[in-house]
Every structure is written in structure tokens, then in C-alpha cells.
């Protein structure tokens, strides 16, 4: 039966306070890393799912060295369960404020293999360092570099072909 005492409420409070701090720290990174795989909307859903998981497994997570990387994997598996293998959707670039961005860029991005897309976006669009990418995605330095170069080359080919 729900017997709420002052003590348990207090505990929940401090717990949620640290959780809020944790979310502020991890959420932006997690969210950005997931956009490459799932597109804007689904990435948000996946992030939320992972944060719910984080709250429910708080003790377990608190003892981890790299909770962001772990949550990234949680988010990926959850998203895969929720959305299956769906092609991510990217919004078109605003033609008024940045007319010099190719309108075909989102489509070209979507056609990249998942890893290349994630890494190209993180490196060139969100300006992450390779170390940050390795920490969250768990990929090695070399892999990140390789996928970044290949992804960029493919993008160039796709856009150049259309232009």
C-alpha cells in the first residue's frame, strides 16, 4: 500500500535533484548523437525512452564510468524496437536564411549508411571532437575517422552528381 512518509519523499527529492543535473549534462549529447540514426522526431523519442530507463535504473547508472555511452546503447535498442529500421527524416534547410545550402543535402544525408551519417553529422554539423564521439558511440578513433571520410566523400558524390 502506498504509505508515503516524509522520509521517502525527501529521498526522492535529492534523487530527482541529481537526476535533473544528470539530464542537463547528458541529454544534449545523447540527443545529438541519436539524430543521425533516427532523424529529429524519433531521436527525441529515443532520448526520452533512454532517460526514463536512466531514472528507473538510477543506482546502476550512478556507478558507471560512462553512463552516456550506456544510455546511447539503451536508446538505440529501444528505438529499434519502437521504429524498426526506418529511414530517418531530416528537415529541409531554410532557403531564406541559408540559401547557399543545397536543398538536396537532407536527402543525401538520409541515403548514407547509418554509421557514416551519424559520424558526419556529429563531426561536421555538431562540431564534436573525435574523443567525444568515441565516448558516446563506443567506436574507436580510427573507425570514426574512416567513416567520417567515407561519408563525406559519398555526400560529395551525391550532391555533385545532382548539381
Amino acid at each position, binding site marked *: 500500500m502506498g504509505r508515503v*512518509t516524509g522520509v521517502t*519523499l525527501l529521498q526522492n527529492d535529492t534523487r530527482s535533484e541529481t537526476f535533473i543535473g544528470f539530464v542537463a549534462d547528458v*541529454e544534449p549529447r545523447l*540527443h545529438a548523437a541519436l539524430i543521425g540514426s533516427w532523424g*529529429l522526431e524519433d531521436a527525441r523519442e529515443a532520448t526520452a525512452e533512454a532517460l526514463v530507463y536512466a531514472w528507473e535504473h538510477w543506482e546502476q547508472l550512478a556507478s558507471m564510468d560512462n553512463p552516456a555511452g550506456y544510455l546511447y546503447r539503451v536508446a538505440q535498442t529501444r528505438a529499434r524496437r519502437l521504429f524498426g529500421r526506418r529511414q530517418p527524416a531530416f528537415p529541409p534547410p531554410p532557403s531564406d536564411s541559408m540559401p547557399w545550402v*543545397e536543398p538536396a*543535402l537532407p536527402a543525401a544525408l538520409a541515403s548514407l549508411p547509418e554509421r557514416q551519417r551519424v559520424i558526419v*553529422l556529429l563531426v561536421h*554539423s555538431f*562540431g564534436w571532437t573525435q574523443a567525444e564521439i568515441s565516448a558516446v558511440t563506443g567506436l574507436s578513433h580510427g573507425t570514426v575517422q574512416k567513416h567520417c571520410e567515407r561519408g563525406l566523400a559519398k555526400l560529395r558524390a551525391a550532391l555533385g552528381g545532382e548539381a
Partner: protein
Amino acid sequence: MTVDLERQLDAYGDHLTSLVDHVSADEALDRAEITRTDAAVPSRRPRLRWLRWAVPSGAVVLVALLAATLGSMPVSNNFARISSFLDGADSESPVTTAAASETTSAPGTTADPGSSGSPDGVLQESTDTTAPPPGGSSPTANRSIIYTADMSVAVADVPTAVAEATAVVESLGGVLFGEVTRGGPEPTSVLTFRVLPERFEAALTGLGTIGELREQNRSADDVTDTVVDLQSRISTAEASVLRLRELMGTAGDVADIAKVEEELLDRETELERLRGRLRTIDAQVSMASITVTLRRALVNPDARLVVTAYPGHDRGASCPGSDTVSVTQGEDVTVCFEVRNRGDVAIDDIRVSDTVLEVETADLISVAGDPARPLPPGQSVFLAAEIEVDRELRTQSRMSATPIADSGDAIAGSSISGQASAVVMTDQPEVQPGFRAGLGAGGRALRSAAVFASLVAGALLPFTWAFVLVGIAMVWRRRKARPI
């Protein structure tokens, strides 16, 4: 291609970042709350998880089945021979070895889990914190206190007691919040009531009179401090929201407005969270909750079988004998069976059988008492079997009986059974097995173990493909689950 691709990506990234709708901690908390409270939504977790226990337990069941089949096959004769050899090997003085062993059990009716350890009818009452709730305008009037009580009541009939309990609470203006009823051998019903705090005491008294009160725990949690704290935090948050709203009117710069708006949103969500918590506590304070567990008042049927034997035939007149008897081969022996009712209800339909003597209740001589009539508590019925001994034997006797209520009806779901044995020895004990015989028995034991092992292996072999498939499926699934 006019502009460098890297620059395009960078600009596009800025655009994406501006579109990102961040997930706040509060939203995650809310979602967690929903998934936890919404029991109707089955969790997505158990998918292939069942395989983790299904495979090993399936294998165990398979082996158990095999063992059961083998047990009824000739192999068991070997085992029996081995065990009898082992028995005989360490028996220096034959008389001391065998003693009558006997066990009785009355499944499902002996223990009352509610009043663990306490004798029936003893009331355990523990009051956790403060005194019982107010009669009206006591000093607790403006304090916030959550009253809860758990009680366990033994009743004659659970369904009628449920109706009575509900009537009692409803007459006091309370509500039935939940009911979990279980039938079967031990019918129980767990009811959850909510009543006004003023009626809390009356409801407890009323519920206690439905049957025999076995256990009652009540507690009063004073949450006044929490409530006051929450209220002050809410008013602070309200003031800050108001201030921010005013600030927004005066802010000129777009960046300033955005900053203030962001801050305002944070404060407002925090405010809502605090208000929600206060509402939850208020709801708990305004209604006291009582959990009542109704159990059928239990009886304790018990009976015991004692098997004895003595030399000679006199239609059981000398019963009881002793649990071990020594006679010369070919002599007459009478085996006595005593069924004693040690419970607190009468038992009926008493059956005694013996697989070694191959006798049933009908074959036995009634010495005292009649097994076909109800046996009152504390009394015994004696039966006897007359046999001629051609070898040493240990009887394997079983007894079963049905407890009956005062009305004469059988008490549903309860039955008593027990087993016991007596040993009849012959004066010329069998020759102690020598080294040769021992060697032979050891060889046979090894051989039957090997046979058993090869049978198990053979039975599992056709399923190898299944294990391999399951293994592949697990590996494949794990690979699939790996991110990008």
C-alpha cells in the same frame, strides 16, 4: 558546387540544433511515472528472455522424465539390490538397525501464514507511531496525518465476510478500493478500503467484529512538515513565476526575451511538479486506508499411523506389538496398524494399505474401532493383518483419511496421509555378503550407472539441433542488438 560542403554541413547542423526540442528531466520523470503506474500496459521487456530459463529448465524436465521412466524399469531393481547390499553391509547387530519410521502430514491445512508462530486467537497488535486517530476536534485537527492500517481476520466463510466487511465500511461512508480474492484450498480475500480519518477507528472496530481478529497494524505518518515545506516552496515558485512574467514585459532585446522565457518555462514546470506532489499527499491525508485480509478460520486435522508386529495369530487381540520383531522363518506374525486422530476435527474414510504385504483396508481385521465410521479427535482405530513370514521384510504402509467438519461434510481441499513401517526379522539372518558378492554388486552398480548415462545421452542427442539453433538465435540476436 558553390559553397564548401563542410560549411554547408555546419550551417545545416546549426539549423538542426535550433530545431531540437530537448527532453527535460521533468518529462522523463513524468514518463517514468506513467510507465510505472500504468499496469495495463505490459512491459516490452520479456521477449526472448524466457529462453534464458526455458532452455535449462526444459533440459531438466527432460532428464527428470527420463529418470522417472527409467525408475520404473528393471534398472531400479539393480538400485534396490545395491541399497539392500549397502544396508546389510553395515548391520553388525540386526536388532538395532531397524526402527519403525513414520511421517504424517496434512497438506494445506496445518499452518496459518497470517499468524505465524502465534497460537490461534491470540491478538497481535502493534501501533506504529502516534495514538489512534481523532474523534473530531483534537489537537491533530490541523495537522496532516496519513492513517493506514493492515488487519487480518479469520472468518467462517470468506465470501459472506467480504460482503459484511463492505457493508460495515460503506455504512461509515467509506469506499471499497480494491479486492483480491483467491479460492482454492485456502480461500483468502484482501480488501482495501478508504475511509474518512474521523471514521478510521470506527471502521477498524467494525471490521474486527466480522470474525476473529488475528493481527492488526496501524500507523499514522505525520506529513505536516512535508506539506508545509511543499506549500512554502510552491508559494516561492509562484512568486518567482510572477516576477519573471513582469520581467518579460520590460525586456526589450530578443535574446533577453528568449532567456527569460526559457527560465519561466523551467519555473513553471517545477511549480506544477510541486503542486502535483501536494495533491497526492492531500489525497492520502483526506482518506485513511485500511487493508483487510480475510482468511477462513483454520482447523488443524492431523492423524498418525503406527505399525507394529508380534509373533503368533490371535486375530489382533495382542495389538499393539513392537516395531521390530524377530521370528524363525515360516512362523506366523500379526501386523498391527493403529490410526490415531491427533487433530482437532473428526476424520472419516480411513484407508490403510501396505505394498509389501499387499493388503488393503478391506483385507484387514478390525481389532478396535471401525475405519468406515468417523473417528473423533484423540481416539484410535486398530487394524491387523495376519501373515506367514518366509523372509525378512519391512512393511511399507500408507494411511489416508479425510477430515470432516462438525456438519459431517468433508473439509474441502484437505486430506491427511501418512506412512510408517515395521520390520520383521528372521532368526537366521542372511549370510553377510562376501568380497566376491560385494565385487559383483559394485560391478552391477557401475554398469547400471553407465546404462543410465548412455540412455540420457541418447535421449538428448536427437535434440542437438534444437540446442544449436537456440545458440545461433541468441548470438544473432545479440549481434543485431549491437548499436550501429
